[in-house]
């Protein structure tokens, strides 16, 4: 038995990893749109590069990049090996001029700004070099952004007060290091700042003072695989540090408030689906070919084709909305009345049942057809087997043959079907929660996806899928409990 459990658990690892990878890949793909936002914020297309305009917008977007790891390379980070010459060449690529492709230039510039801590030292080296005076303006700009590491509330809570203050001051000081410059199509980079020399020395000094904070000696080797978008995502997932910038809250605390609602609804829906479709299937199997069986089969077929969003909206329209001349029979939103906290327990449960009745109906009706069909086929299969003939020959009553022998053996298939059903239900509960305004995981995921809140989407997807995998595991275990052949194989 234990061998079976371990085997199932091991099989789940690649599945779960694969899901993480798919999730990560999808969220990585939205990169270009964020880069567009950054361009919009910096007025990048307007020609004249204006340091004042940039300073108002870029940090706000950098916060989003830094907290989600979108500023890091996806899988391999080689930024620690960029030296002074490479950075100088990179800076020259961001210069406007005749015949320069503006879109490519802009992209390279944004990439440089997001390149992060490893570029602070080489950029300072460019600033210290008198021969590269032309590049000092953009280098100081890039340095101030590469050195910018925002703190979100979670990090602030864990940090010592003076350390947090030091970090805040460091971020503040960065703005003062920017040398104003122009980047024209005509003559490229041109420093326009009267205080350029003072800012330049300050920037070099800043980089020297914080050298260890930005790139300690062995860091660049560790960063190759350790400081990438994917590892940051995994670390944040494992430590629960996924942070939703949109909602200013930890992703997992948002999920913790809501997952029980969805999980409970789905579990109840499965139980109801089993309780309805098992008797239906058995009944159909006993009356094969009768008018009743064919009628119920057709009715179930129609039910199966009914889209749940149509049924849900229809119920909302006819039963949950006040029309002229009639009042609503059911509430139209949520799972409990606003003042239900003050109800006695029976009243509270009654209130809950009143609220949950229609959402549950919409969630589970779609599974009746498939489940009862499988049940019917399975019972029919069992009825022609030898042990049923033996039981009949012994003189066991027909009811006992069907319910005690055939049905019990058919239930095993029902268990495995239950786990497949759950996957469908998880998707379906998004629609149901949306229609009936229930604050569950599905609605959270939907809202996160609509507002492109990447960390929240990742977190809630991973949790939904995790819950699903656990349920599949439970179903597998139940399967082993119910079927002695499996236990025997792994004994």
């Amino acid at each position, binding site marked *: 038995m234990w061998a079976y459990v371990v085997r199932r658990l091991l099989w789940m690892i690649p599945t779960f990893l694969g899901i993480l990878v798919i999730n990560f890949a999808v969220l990585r793909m939205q990169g270009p749109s964020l880069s567009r936002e950054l361009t919009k914020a910096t007025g990048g297309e307007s020609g004249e590069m204006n340091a004042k305009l940039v300073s108002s917008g870029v940090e706000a977007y950098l916060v989003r990049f830094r907290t989600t790891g979108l500023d890091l390379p996806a899988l391999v980070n080689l930024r620690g090996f960029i030296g002074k010459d490479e950075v100088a060449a990179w800076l020259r690529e961001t210069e406007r001029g005749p015949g320069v492709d503006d879109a490519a230039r802009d992209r390279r510039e944004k990439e440089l700004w997001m390149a992060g801590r490893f570029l602070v030292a080489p950029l300072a080296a460019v600033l210290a070099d008198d021969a590269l005076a032309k590049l000092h303006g953009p280098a100081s700009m890039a340095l101030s952004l590469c050195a910018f590491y925002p703190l979100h509330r979670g990090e602030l809570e864990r940090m010592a007060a003076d350390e947090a203050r030091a970090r805040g001051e460091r971020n503040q000081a960065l703005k003062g290091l920017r040398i104003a410059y122009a980047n024209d199509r005509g003559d490229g980079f041109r420093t326009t700042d009267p205080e350029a020399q003072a800012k330049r020395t300050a920037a070099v000094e800043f980089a020297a003072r914080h050298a260890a904070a930005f790139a300690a000696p062995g860091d660049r080797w560790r960063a190759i695989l350790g400081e990438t978008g994917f590892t940051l995502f995994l670390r944040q997932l494992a430590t629960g540090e996924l942070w939703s910038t949109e909602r200013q809250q930890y992703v997992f605390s948002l999920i913790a408030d809501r997952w029980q609602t969805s999980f409970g609804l789905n579990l109840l829906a499965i139980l109801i689906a089993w309780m309805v479709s098992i008797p239906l299937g058995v009944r159909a199997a006993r009356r094969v070919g009768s008018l009743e069986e064919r009628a119920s089969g057709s009715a179930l077929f129609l039910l199966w084709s009914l889209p749940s*969003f*149509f049924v849900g909206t229809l119920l909302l329209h006819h039963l949950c909305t006040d029309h002229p001349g009639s009042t609503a029979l059911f509430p139209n939103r949520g799972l409990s009345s606003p003042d239900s906290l003050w109800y006695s327990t029976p009243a509270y449960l009654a209130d809950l049942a009143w609220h949950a009745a229609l959402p549950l109906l919409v969630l589970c009706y779609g599974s009746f057809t498939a489940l009862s069909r499988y049940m019917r086929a399975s019972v029919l299969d069992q009825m022609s087997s030898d042990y049923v003939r033996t039981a009949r020959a012994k003189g066991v009553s027909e009811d006992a043959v069907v319910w005690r022998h055939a049905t019990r053996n058919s239930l095993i298939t029902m268990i495995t079907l239950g786990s497949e059903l759950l996957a469908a239900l998880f998707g379906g509960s998004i629609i149901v929660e949306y229609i009936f305004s229930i604050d569950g995981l599905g609605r959270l995921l939907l809202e996160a996806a609509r507002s492109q809140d990447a960390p929240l989407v990742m977190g809630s997807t991973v949790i939904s899928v995790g819950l699903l995998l656990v349920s599949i595991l439970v179903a597998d275990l139940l399967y082993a409990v119910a079927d002695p052949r499996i236990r025997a194989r792994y004994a």
Partner: protein
Amino acid sequence: MPETAPASPLALALRRFASRRGAQLGIALCAAFALVALYAPLLASDVAIVWWDDAGFRLPLLADLFNRRSYPKHHDLLFSVAGLLLPAIATGWWLLRRRWSASRRVLAAAGLVLCGWLLAMLPLLPDGRGGWQAVWSDRPSSACTAEAARASGAWTIFPLVPHRYDAAYAGAVLKPPGTVNPASGRGFLLGTDQVGFDVFARMAFGTRISLTIGLLATGIALAIGTVIGALSGYLGGWVDLVLQRLVEIMMCFPTFILVLVVVAMLGRDIFIITWVLGLTGWAGAARLVRGEFLAQSGRDYVLACRAAGLPAARIMFRHVLPNCMTPLLISATFGVAGSVGLESGLAFIGLGDANVPSWGMLLNQGRENIAFGWLIWVPGLAVFLLVMSLNMVGNGLREALDPKASP
């Protein structure tokens, strides 16, 4: 006893299929939806079909079909071309019924439509300024509208509803079915939505969206699933192991969540939605094809092919795959139904393409304006009927093709 022509098992099964009442009903409904999609402009357009005045006899709608300003999307052009070619295809189908096999005729028809589609996009016509322009290009909007007809007194035939699907009519927000539109003098057959669009016109053109996405997404999914399933079943070994893990991942991942996340992140465009539905929906087909390949690959004819030294790809796709067509056909029908439902569901939760009329989007408006019943019943029933008819066809195919189920 009449002489019966020798027929393949598939042909026999298709004959069995055609004699079932449920399947007949499903086919009829599907055909009705297809006709609505093909001839949607005849049902709802503000341009006259026939216009006869002193200047002569004209067919303004025919010209308008190839006006890129009126129908900017590629799928609209494809449906217009297919609609115009349909009589020719039907005639050819009937004339060649004894000479060409059904699959050859299907391929020829598809090729004809695609050629017409491409031709309409090639610069073939002189544009009057010395250059060339495509048949399908930007022109001034047609002047032959309902208002112009009333003013000029020309003899005209108009579409069933003289309203455009993408025109918001002034003062026509959330009007119930039957309300008269002062702009055209005709009624809104199925009411209007919250923007002032004619629901009937949007429903007619929404059929095109549902069918396009349903068919294309299923096609993509089947192609991927077939290749992966074939490789996995035929090659076996570690290829099979790896691909089966991939299939397991796709099976475990709740498709709707995946589609929702991808569409929300990459953009709400019908092109993206179609590809996402296709790229996420192949797991079932892969499993099916793998099973069939496992069953077939030990057969004598496969061994004979191998002994003859045929390359693996040729054995897989020329010899084994045709034997797996029946389960694939069934799964394709259910797949289209599933894709149609998924697309409507996506549009319903607000993740559809806002630039095209979609049934799910209308239903979502019904949810937002919950007191207005026609916004719920009309699109909901349409999705239900299309999904149901496709399921009926799939069911009929399964019963006809499954040797166990047939009497």
